[in-house]
C-alpha cells in the first residue's frame, strides 16, 4: 500500500524502520530507514542511520548515508554528514553536506569503463583521489597504441629512462600516441 507513515515531532524511534510506502519524519530516528517510497525529513527531524528510499527530501539533520533510487534533495537548512548517492542529487544553497556525493544509475555518465573505475575507487578508498584511478584507467586503452610503437621504441634509444617511470610515463606515452594520430 502506498500509505504515508509519519513519525511525528515528539516521537523517537530507536531501531530500524523499513517497508513500503512513503515516510515523513518530523521526529527522531536512531537506526536505518529503508523504504520503497519517498522519504521526507522535516526541519525538526533527525536521523542517525542510513536512509534509503525512492526520492529523499531532507530538511533536517542526518548522520548517515542517503541513498535514493530516484533522487536525493538536500534542502536549505538541512545538515547531512554522510554520503549521498542517487541518479539525481540536489543540494540547495544553505544546506550543509559533508560526505561523498555520487550521481549514479545514469547511462549518460561518460563511458562505462570510467564509471566502473570510479566505482572501484569509491569502494576501496572513498576519497576523491582521482589521479590514481585515472592513471589506471588509460592503461588498457594505452596498450593498443603501445602494441604498434614497440619496434619504434627500440630504434629510439634516447627515451628509455622515461619508460620505467610510473603513471607519469604512461601518461606521456599516451600523449605522444595521440599526437601521432
Amino acid at each position, binding site marked *: *500500500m502506498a*500509505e*504515508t*507513515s*509519519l*513519525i*511525528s*515531532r*515528539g*516521537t*523517537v*524511534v*530507536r*531501531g*530500524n*524502520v*523499513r*517497508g*513500503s*510506502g*512513503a*515516510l515523513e519524519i518530523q*521526529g527522531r530516528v536512531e*537506526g536505518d530507514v529503508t*523504504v520503497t517510497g519517498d522519504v521526507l525529513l522535516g526541519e525538526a527531524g533527525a536521523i542517525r542511520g542510513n536512509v534509503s528510499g525512492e526520492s529523499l527530501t531532507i530538511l533536517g539533520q542526518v548522520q548517515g548515508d542517503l541513498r535514493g533510487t530516484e533522487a536525493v534533495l538536500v534542502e536549505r537548512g538541512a545538515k547531512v554528514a554522510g554520503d549521498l548517492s542517487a541518479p539525481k542529487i540536489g543540494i540547495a544553497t544553505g544546506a550543509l553536506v559533508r560526505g561523498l556525493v555520487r550521481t549514479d544509475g545514469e547511462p549518460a555518465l561518460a563511458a562505462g569503463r570510467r564509471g566502473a573505475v570510479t566505482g572501484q575507487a569509491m569502494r576501496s578508498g572513498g576519497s576523491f583521489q582521482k589521479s590514481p584511478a585515472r592513471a589506471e584507467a588509460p592503461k588498457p586503452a594505452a596498450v593498443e597504441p603501445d602494441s604498434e610503437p614497440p619496434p619504434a621504441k627500440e630504434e629510439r634509444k634516447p627515451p628509455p629512462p622515461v619508460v620505467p617511470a610510473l603513471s607519469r610515463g604512461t601518461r606521456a606515452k599516451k600523449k605522444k600516441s595521440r599526437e601521432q594520430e
Partner: protein
Amino acid sequence: MAGTVIGEGLTIEGDVTSEEEVVIHGNLRGKLTTSDAVTVGSTGVVTADITGSSLSVAGQVTGDVTASERIDVQPGGKLVGDIKASRFTIADGASFKGNVDMEI
C-alpha cells in the same frame, strides 16, 4: 497535530517513544511508550509492551499493556498479554488472553 502513524507495509523494529498519539496500521516489534493514546488498526500487528494513556486494538497486539486511562479491544481485535488499566472493554468478536489488573 496528527501524531505518529505507522502505515500499512511499514515495519519498525525497536523502541518507539512518543509524546503524541501513535497509530499503527503496520508492524511494530520492540517497545512502545507514549504519554498519549495508542491505536492499533485492523491491519496493525504489534509485538511489544505498550505504555500509553489509552489503547484501542482492532488488529493484533502481543505484549503487556499499561494504560493510565483505558484499554478497548475492538471487534476483530486480538490482545494477548497482561494488562493494567482502570477501564477495560472487550467487544463482541474480539479476543483476549492474559491477566487483568484494574487497580482496585
